[in-house]
């Protein structure tokens, strides 16, 4: 009985990891499409989202199966609940990748404008947060997960800085306004991705420590 459940948990872990890899690749491509004015690449991201949706349903079914057949308790129960919630977050990150890709298409049409702020740096930070949140799950590393929660503030700050810079540029060069609005929307999506990575890390902390730390309950 318990061996079956443990095998189930291993499968679930692999499925989550591969979903995460796919999601990360999608955001990576979307950001590249934006920076390189590559509407073709953006279209690929758009098309591949169906695959993420499909996998999300598979992970959910796997979780339901584990609950229904094995009635897991303790760490196993907390893992399945965390997996269900992470699955949701990963799917939402996939949607945000599509948002960025659509902005990339618009941005490509808006003509060759140099990106005046550090969107790539922002993605790099968010990407590391996403990776660490999943690594913290796989390696049961609560410290790593706590680190992710702390870094969320840095990404928020970057978004605010970008917004301030963009506002100044809009006043100085009103002609760039449409392109800047597109880039601002992309930065909002990146910031949301960091939020979802934080959600995942919080779920890992719950799984490992049995403490719910959302809504500022972190000590």
């Amino acid at each position, binding site marked *: 009985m*318990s061996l079956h459940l443990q095998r189930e948990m291993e499968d679930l872990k692999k499925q989550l990891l591969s979903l995460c890899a796919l999601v990360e690749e999608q955001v990576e491509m979307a950001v590249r499409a934006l920076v390189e004015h590559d509407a073709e690449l953006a279209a690929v991201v758009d098309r591949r989202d169906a695959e993420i949706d499909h996998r999300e349903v598979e992970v959910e079914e796997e979780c339901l199966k584990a609950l229904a057949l094995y009635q897991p*308790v*303790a760490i196993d129960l907390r893992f399945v609940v965390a997996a269900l919630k992470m699955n949701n977050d990963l799917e939402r990150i996939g949607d945000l990748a599509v948002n960025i890709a659509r902005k990339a298409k618009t941005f490509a049409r808006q003509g060759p404008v140099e990106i005046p702020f550090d969107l790539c740096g922002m993605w790099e930070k968010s990407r590391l947060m996403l990776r660490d949140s999943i690594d913290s799950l796989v390696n049961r590393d609560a410290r790593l997960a706590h680190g992710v929660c702390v870094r969320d503030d840095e990404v928020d700050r970057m978004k605010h800085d970008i917004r301030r810079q963009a506002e100044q540029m809009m006043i100085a060069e009103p002609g760039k306004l449409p392109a800047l609005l597109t880039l601002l929307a992309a930065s909002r999506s990146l910031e949301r991705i960091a939020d979802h990575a934080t959600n995942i890390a919080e779920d890992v902390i719950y799984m490992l420590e049995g403490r719910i730390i959302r809504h500022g309950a972190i000590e």
Partner: protein
Amino acid sequence: MIANEPAASAAASISTRNLNLWYGDFQALRDVSLDIKPGIVTALVGPSGCGKTTLLRCFNRINERYGNVTTTGQITIFGKNIYDPDVSLTQLRKTVGMVFQRPNPLPISIYENVLFGIRSHTRRGEYSRRERDAMVESALRNVRLWDEVKDRLRKKATQLTLEQQQKLCIARLLPLKPRVMLMDEPCSALDAEGIERIELLLQELRKTYTILIVTHNMAQARRASDECAFMLLGRIVEHDKTLNVFLNPREKETEMYVTGRYG
């Protein structure tokens, strides 16, 4: 008293402090300090041989019947140390009733089974016929057995189904007005429906009694108990609300056991 050793809790109906028990030179209980609360069902869980039945049997002192048993430490039930020299075993076993793994009705009528305990504790003629009838009806109603057997009270109890027999064994305790019920795997001889009905009965009885149940069945501990004490090698590893034990146990050993990884 050692500084960090908690005093017996006034809110608890059963308290043990540093309880040790040996069968010959085999130590079956080690330093057990536990508070069992009234008004709830407490489950004792743990692998075979961990001492849960031994602990249960300390509370009405039937362990002593096996001979070669040495006990140290303290057990208080409703504030009274049950090893005090002035404790009457008869009185103790009236207060602390016990239900066993296999239903053990006596080969006499259903009616006489219910009255058997009270008869052996009182003088002949102490209760009128009417009082005895009322006692039997009330006890059988309390265990949800009355409607099924009211027309055949004079029939032999051994003809009942196992579930009915087990309910009868519980009913048999009630005329003695016990305050604690000890149950050692009370459902292991029953089918799924019988188990469910006994568990429902426990939920009703817990309002009136302190119920302590030993079970191997982890699903039953989850469903039917409010608190759970996990034992291993004669020790209490963890005692907490059942939800905590199965959702978020504090001790690694508890987690290993409840998730089926122990062994």
